């Protein structure tokens, strides 16, 4: 999943890196196919190199040492609000087929069944970054028909140009990367389709673990397996208790 996520990062892009897995994905991309990709961290950092050791948070000392800019969050957000962030990563507890994320409430907000941590910078990235990607464990309870609460808007109700009509700056979710497959969104349409299934898994497995009637593209490819270089980078950084 991390290797696949890292491939979403193109060389020279400015990437808004979230917590945990995306931090590793950025490091992998930086040290393989995207040597000139810069990472932006909402804590108030810009980097062009992966941290030298494991990070529990984006604000850990190894992520600060050698930074290109240590500043205020509102300055980092300024770049994103100007449409200068090419790609953002957002974590989520629930995602629906239109790419909307819920990280706030399962059940009614006034009396939630599960109170999730909240947006953090997620809604900011979802609205303002040019495109974004979310990583998720592929479970039926996570990939739902419609999220009960939209914390970070994807393509809303899926209707054409929903984002533009609602004034959202960025183009929205480009992919949902799960432990089983990669969903993508057709240009100008809001509903996710299966683009590739990870090696060792099947489309039926995906259908069974997804809370909506899964759409597939003309041909569903097999996700390219992690390369040696990718695996080396991942091991290097996941060794110490990253989940």
């Amino acid at each position: 999943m991390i290797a696949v996520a890292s491939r979403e990062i193109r060389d020279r892009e400015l990437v808004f890196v979230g917590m945990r897995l995306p931090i590793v994905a950025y490091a992998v991309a930086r040290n393989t196919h995207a040597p000139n990709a810069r990472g932006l961290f909402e804590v108030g950092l810009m980097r062009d190199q992966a941290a030298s050791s494991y990070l529990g948070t984006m604000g850990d000392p190894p992520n600060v040492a050698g930074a290109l800019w240590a500043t205020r969050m509102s300055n980092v957000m300024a770049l994103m609000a100007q449409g200068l962030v090419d790609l953002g990563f957002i974590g989520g507890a629930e995602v629906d087929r239109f790419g909307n994320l819920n990280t706030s409430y399962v059940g009614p907000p006034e009396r939630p069944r599960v109170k999730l941590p909240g947006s953090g910078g997620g809604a900011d990235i979802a609205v303002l970054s040019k495109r974004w990607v979310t990583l998720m464990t592929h479970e039926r309870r996570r990939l739902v028909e419609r999220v009960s609460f939209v914390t970070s808007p994807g393509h809303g109700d899926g209707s054409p140009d929903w984002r533009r009509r609602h004034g959202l700056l960025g183009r929205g979710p480009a992919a949902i990367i799960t432990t089983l497959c990669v969903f993508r969104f057709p240009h100008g349409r809001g509903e996710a389709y299966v683009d590739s299934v990870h090696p060792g898994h099947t489309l039926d497995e995906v259908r069974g673990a997804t809370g909506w009637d899964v759409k597939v593209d003309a041909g569903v490819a097999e996700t390219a397996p992690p390369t040696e270089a990718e695996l080396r980078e991942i091991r290097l950084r996941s060794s110490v208790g990253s989940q």
Partner: protein
Amino acid sequence: MAEAIERFVPDGSTIALGCALEPLIPFAAGHELIRQRRKDLELVGPISDSLFDEIIGAGCVRRITAAWIGNVSGGLGHCYRRAAEQGIPRAIEIHDHTNFSISMALWAAAWNVPYLPARTLLGSDILGTNPNITDVDGLVYISAVRPDVTIVHVQRCDSQGRAHAWGPLGISEEAGLAADHVIVSCEELVDESVTLSDPNRILLPETKVVAVVQEPGGAHPAPVQGFWKRDHALDNAYADESRTLEGYEAWLKRWVLDVPDRQAYMKMVDVDSIRISGNRPSEPVNFADE
């Protein structure tokens, strides 16, 4: 610290904490709030790793005005869940924010305007749950949030409140400027010849600072650039133990209630595993005027 909290943070206060996000979180101050059994607090901040969760669990909190409350290692904030889902130990009011919107809310207060406009949050249901954020014609209006007290932990400070903080600053500056009072806890209490040698590094105007407390390790388990790594193990342990109410209460007794002060707390921590011993000095700049 006990005296600073006693004097400047009465029950019902609105307090901004953890404003540098993951680093420099004033855990020592938060634990003192709990020991002094503060009531009906409003906590303001972006994401405070587990600090807000701990304070909520202790029943000190009336309202949360924040972007994210959980535990960076574990994810979910279990005390936050119990409070929001079952009102245990007490019900809390939640004003959802994003990192960007809480920053704007504090800048609004700093510049003394009722709100600032922003382009975030469009299409998000948070517009429906936070009464202080509304959208009109593709712009979102974020009402000012003015803390009574902002508490920051920094690397060094002098006795007059001139604080030097380095590394990412999150929303520390706007939170301090927006507050009526600022409490500074610091790793090192230094002479003003150190702080005034670099007035650009002074985080906030001394006129806002009402108390300076030297509290080495005051941010533990959060990291402090040049002083402490993040204590991942301890943060993971809290995530596990706080899963159940009993587990949390045991944790609270051991790490907060039965601990007289931060010095005693640090004796319980494996400081050698997290102490930063290296030196990576900033290149000096010249403030000479002749």
